[in-house]
C-alpha cells in the first residue's frame, strides 16, 4: 500500500500552475492567450481552495471555488466581448499594437 499523497504536493502544484499563468500573462503577446493565462491562474487558486477544504474537512472551500468559477465564466463572457470589439475597431490581436492610451 502506497503512502497517501501529502497535501503540500497539491499546494506546490497549485504554485507551479499559478507561476506558469503569471509567466504566460507577462510573456505572451496575443490578447486571447493572455486571457487564457488568467484562467490558468484562477484554476490554480481553485486547486488550493479545494486542498485546504480537504485539510479542514469543511465544504466552504468548495463554495469559494464555485464562486471563482462563476466569476471566471462572467469574466470570460465580458472579456471576449471586449476582445471582439477591439478586433473590430483595430483589426489586431497583438497587445503591443493596442497602445492608444500609452503616454
Amino acid at each position, binding site marked *: 500500500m502506497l503512502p497517501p499523497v501529502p497535501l503540500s504536493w497539491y499546494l*506546490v502544484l497549485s504554485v507551479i500552475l499559478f507561476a506558469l499563468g503569471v509567466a504566460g500573462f507577462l*510573456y505572451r503577446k496575443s490578447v486571447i492567450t493572455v486571457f487564457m493565462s488568467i484562467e490558468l491562474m484562477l484554476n490554480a487558486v481553485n486547486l488550493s481552495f479545494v486542498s485546504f477544504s480537504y*485539510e479542514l474537512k469543511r465544504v466552504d472551500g468548495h463554495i469559494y471555488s*464555485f464562486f471563482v468559477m462563476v466569476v471566471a465564466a462572467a469574466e470570460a463572457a465580458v472579456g471576449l466581448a471586449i476582445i471582439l470589439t477591439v478586433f473590430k475597431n483595430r483589426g489586431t490581436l497583438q497587445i503591443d499594437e493596442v497602445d492608444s492610451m500609452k503616454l
Partner: protein
Amino acid sequence: MDTVLFIIFAVVAIVCAFNLVLQKHPISSALSLIGVMGSLAVLYLLLGAEFIAMAQMIVYGGAVMVLFVFVIMLLNAGSEKASSKSWFAQLAGLPLLCAFVAVLGFFVRAAMPVLRGVRFGTWVGGTAERIGQVLFTQYLLPFEVISILILIAILGAVVLARKEID
C-alpha cells in the same frame, strides 16, 4: 494508487500549462488549457470534491473553453508575431519565475509541516447534496449577489458585442 494518479495528472497539468505558455498559436494554447482543466478535475475528485470536479468539466472545460475556441475561430486568430522584448525580461524572466516558485513552495512547505496526507475516499464532503445545503443556507446572500453579477455580465457582453445600428 492515489500517488500514481496524482503524479500522472499533475504531470499532465504541468506539461499542458507549459505548452500553453510556449505555443505560438492561440488554438494550441486553448487545447492545452482544456488538458489542464481536465486533469485538475481528476485531482478534485481525488480530493473528494465531486461537485466541483463536475462543475470544472462543465463550466470550465465546456462553456468557457467553447467560448474561447469560438472567438479564436471567429477572429481567425493566427500565430502571434514575435515582438521585441526588453533586455530585462529576456535576461531575468526565467530566473525570477523560478525564484517565485521556489519562494512560494518553500513557504508552503515551511508553514504547513503537519498537513495530513490525502487518501481518496476518506472524506467525501463535496457531494452536490452537501454543497447545496451550505450554498442555500450559509452562503445564500453571496449566491444571490453572484447571480446578479452574472446577469450584468451577460448584459455587458451583449452590449459590447452588438452591431451598431444607426
